[in-house]
C-alpha cells in the first residue's frame, strides 16, 4: 500500500515538473514602425580595393500617417571616386529572386566635394530601399572609411545610420590583360601593364616577367619567366642586356580570386596573404601554367608582391591575365 502511495506521489511530482518546464511563451505581435526608421547592410564581401565598388542597401520607412520620404543621403569620410552614386531606384525581389527597380527619385547628386551623395524623392512614398555604390578612391588605400546614411521626411524628422569604419586594402587591381607569345609578352608589376618588345626595351628595369608559350617540351606550355632566369627557361629568347630582373615566383592552383576571376568563385586574396607569404628560395620561373591557376610574385627590388591569375589560355600561344599588386 505504502509503495503505491510513493509511486503516485512520484508521478505527480514528475507531472508538475513537466508542466512547469514546458510552459509556453505567449506570442507577442511585433511593434509596427511608429516613427521615421532606417536600416543598412553592406552587400559587398571581401577586401575593399581601390577602383572597385563597395555596395550597401539602405532601407528607410515612415508611417503613412506621419508623412513621406523627402530625401536620402550618404556621407563618406573620404570622397568616393568617379562612379560613386546612390540609386534613385528602390529595389524589391520578385518571386523568381530577381531584383526589380522602381524609380523613386532623381539620379543622385554629389555635394561637399564628393563626400555627400544625395537623392531627392520625386514620388509620394513612405518606404524605400536604395543601393549605394561607393567606388574606393586611390587616395583611401591603407586607410579606413566610414559612412553615415540619413533620410529626411516631410514631417521634418531625420534618421541616420552609421556604417564602418572599413579598412581599405593596399592592393591595386588590374584585370584582363592580354599577353601573346613573342609580341605582347613583357609584364611590369610596377606598372601593372603588358608591353611589346620595343616598349619593353625602353624600360628594361621595369620588366619583371616574360610570358612564353612553347609546345615542346610538352610540359612547358604557358610560362611566366623572369628575365634573369636560366636560359633553359627562355628558349629562343634574346633580351636586351640591361633587362635582368630576377623575380621570384610561386605557382598556385585553385586560388581563383573572385575579383580577378570576374566575379566567379568565392575566394578572396587579401592584404594579409601578401604580408604572410614566404617567398624565400622561390624560383624565378614558372612553367606549365594552366587556366585558372596563378603565381605569387615578388619583384627583385622587393617593392611589390603580386598575385598573377590566368583567366584563360589559348593553345596558339596567348593568355589573358589579371593581377593584384601589393606595395611592400
Amino acid at each position, binding site marked *: 500500500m505504502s509503495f503505491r502511495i510513493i509511486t503516485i506521489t512520484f508521478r505527480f511530482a514528475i507531472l508538475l515538473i513537466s508542466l512547469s518546464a514546458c510552459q509556453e511563451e505567449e506570442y507577442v505581435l511585433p511593434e509596427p514602425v511608429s516613427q521615421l526608421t532606417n536600416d543598412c547592410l553592406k552587400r559587398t564581401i571581401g577586401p575593399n580595393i581601390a577602383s572597385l565598388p563597395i555596395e550597401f542597401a539602405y532601407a528607410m520607412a515612415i508611417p503613412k500617417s506621419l508623412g513621406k520620404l523627402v530625401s536620402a543621403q550618404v556621407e563618406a569620410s573620404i570622397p568616393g571616386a568617379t562612379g560613386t552614386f546612390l540609386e534613385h531606384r528602390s529595389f524589391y525581389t520578385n518571386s523568381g529572386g530577381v531584383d526589380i527597380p522602381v524609380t523613386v527619385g532623381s539620379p543622385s547628386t554629389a555635394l561637399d566635394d564628393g563626400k555627400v551623395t544625395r537623392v531627392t524623392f520625386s514620388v509620394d512614398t513612405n518606404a524605400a530601399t536604395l543601393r549605394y555604390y561607393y567606388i574606393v578612391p586611390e587616395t583611401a588605400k591603407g586607410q579606413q572609411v566610414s559612412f553615415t546614411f540619413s533620410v529626411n521626411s516631410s514631417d521634418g524628422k531625420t534618421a541616420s545610420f552609421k556604417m564602418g569604419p572599413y579598412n581599405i586594402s593596399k592592393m591595386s587591381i588590374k584585370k584582363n590583360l592580354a599577353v601573346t607569345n613573342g609580341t605582347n609578352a613583357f609584364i611590369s608589376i610596377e606598372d601593372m601593364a603588358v608591353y611589346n618588345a620595343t616598349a619593353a626595351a625602353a624600360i628594361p628595369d621595369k620588366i619583371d616577367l616574360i610570358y612564353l608559350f612553347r609546345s615542346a*617540351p610538352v610540359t612547358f606550355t604557358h610560362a611566366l619567366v623572369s628575365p634573369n632566369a636560366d636560359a633553359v*627557361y627562355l628558349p629562343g629568347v634574346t633580351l636586351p642586356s640591361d633587362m635582368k630582373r630576377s623575380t621570384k615566383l610561386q*605557382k598556385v592552383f585553385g586560388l581563383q580570386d573572385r575579383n580577378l576571376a570576374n566575379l566567379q568563385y568565392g575566394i578572396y586574396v587579401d592584404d594579409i596573404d601578401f604580408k604572410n607569404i614566404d617567398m624565400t*628560395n*622561390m624560383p624565378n620561373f614558372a612553367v606549365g601554367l594552366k587556366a585558372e*591557376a596563378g603565381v605569387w610574385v615578388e619583384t627583385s627590388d622587393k617593392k611589390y608582391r603580386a598575385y598573377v591569375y590566368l583567366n584563360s589560355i589559348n593553345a596558339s600561344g596567348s593568355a589573358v591575365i589579371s593581377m593584384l599588386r601589393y606595395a611592400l
Partner: protein
Amino acid sequence: MDEDGLLITFRSECFVSNFELLGSDFVTVRAAPAIIDTVAQTIDVQVLFGTDLKNVYPQFTLATDCKLEPKITGKTDLSDLANPKIYTVVSGNRQVRKPYRLNIKFQ
C-alpha cells in the same frame, strides 16, 4: 608507445608502397609513376621539366604501422640530385629499419 606517441605493434612489415611528389601548388610534379624497388630499397622518380625541387612536398605511403625517418614536416628541398636523400622506414614493432634512396631525374 614510442617517442612519437605512436603505438608499437607486433608487425614487422617494413616497406614503401607508394610515393608521390607535389609541387608548391600541391599538384603532382611526377612525369610517370614512381618506381619503388623494395629489394634494392630505392625510389626512382622522374619529374616534369621546370620542377622547382627546392620547394616540393614528398608523400610516402608505408606498410601498416610503419613510420618514416626523418619526418616530412612541410616543404622539402630535394634539389641536390648528386646526393639523393635517404628516408628510413621503421616497422610497426620498431625492430626493422629499411633505408630507401630517393633518386630524382628530370624529364
